[in-house]
């Protein structure tokens, strides 16, 4: 038996993410789940701008690059037009929880039958590592050089906790920091897509990802930072479904 990444994501010599970036793993996990469920031909993926849009270079699926923060809105529209096809919105935390928080929450309120996968690295990545709504208290970023504070940056936003009270089909959070947690993330993505194919409604997965470049950390230190500092604030697991 040969274990290798799906051919639909390996037809080039790689993507352009930074060394150690979690996007590369997330791209592969989504590709594996689509291959397992035989959805590669039907799937339509709505992507964000910035780092969240770069998978468009790697995924050989039908993809749409939405306006910044709007992949969820675009995915809802695509699903209305093609209700029998699986539709995924893939975006970063800056898009899903800041500029696109309205779409993220109202789509959940309507229980739209789409799958939303958010890569949360606690910063705005491509623009230079600025503080985002999910940045931790005390986290040093390029726009909170003395550490994020309640006074200047506000509270840390936990959207998974906000979604727990909503009537949606699936809600989970995983961390892309070690092999065990990555395997859990893989399982969650398959479950979310199965829920959508069964017509059960909105499925939402948050993937906690390292951003070694903007955290100014070696990839190994970034993985440890997730385990020791981020996981106590953002607990992982399946919360609905």
């Amino acid at each position: 038996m040969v274990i290798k990444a799906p051919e639909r994501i390996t037809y080039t010599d790689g993507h352009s993410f930074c060394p150690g970036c979690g996007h590369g793993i997330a791209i592969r996990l989504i590709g594996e789940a689509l291959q397992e469920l035989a959805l590669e031909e039907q799937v339509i993926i709505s992507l964000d701008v910035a780092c969240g849009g770069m998978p468009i270079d790697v995924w050989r699926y039908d993809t749409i690059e939405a306006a910044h923060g709007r992949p969820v809105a675009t995915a809802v529209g695509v699903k209305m037009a093609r209700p029998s096809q699986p539709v995924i919105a893939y975006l970063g935390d800056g898009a899903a929880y800041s500029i696109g928080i309205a779409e993220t929450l109202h789509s959940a309120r309507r229980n739209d039958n789409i799958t939303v996968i958010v890569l949360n690295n606690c910063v705005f990545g491509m623009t230079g590592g600025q503080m985002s709504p999910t940045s931790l208290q005390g986290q040093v970023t390029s726009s909170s050089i003395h550490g994020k504070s309640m006074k200047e940056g506000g509270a840390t936003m936990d959207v998974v906790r906000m979604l727990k009270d909503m009537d949606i089909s699936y809600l989970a959070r995983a961390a892309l920091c070690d092999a065990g947690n990555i395997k859990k993330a893989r399982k969650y993505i398959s479950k979310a897509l199965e829920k959508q194919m069964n017509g059960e409604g909105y499925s939402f997965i948050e993937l906690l990802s390292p951003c070694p470049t903007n955290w100014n950390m070696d990839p190994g230190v970034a993985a440890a930072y997730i385990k020791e500092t981020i996981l106590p604030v953002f607990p992982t697991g399946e919360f609905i479904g």
Partner: protein
Amino acid sequence: MEKIVLQLQRCKGCYNCIRACPKGAISKSGTSNKKGYEVIQVDQEKCIACATCYTVCPDYVFEVCKPEKGA
């Protein structure tokens, strides 16, 4: 047949694989790929084909050949 086939042109030298390998079979090779990153090498003797390296690699460098059971 080798247990691990490497696509080193994709490697970006994050070394997630070196830290994750339970057998210490992966190390820095001292050579660079076209992108300029120092790539890794695998000791096929130490490797147990557990595919942990495949799981943690963000750049799809690893193809793991697991021997069939009983083979």
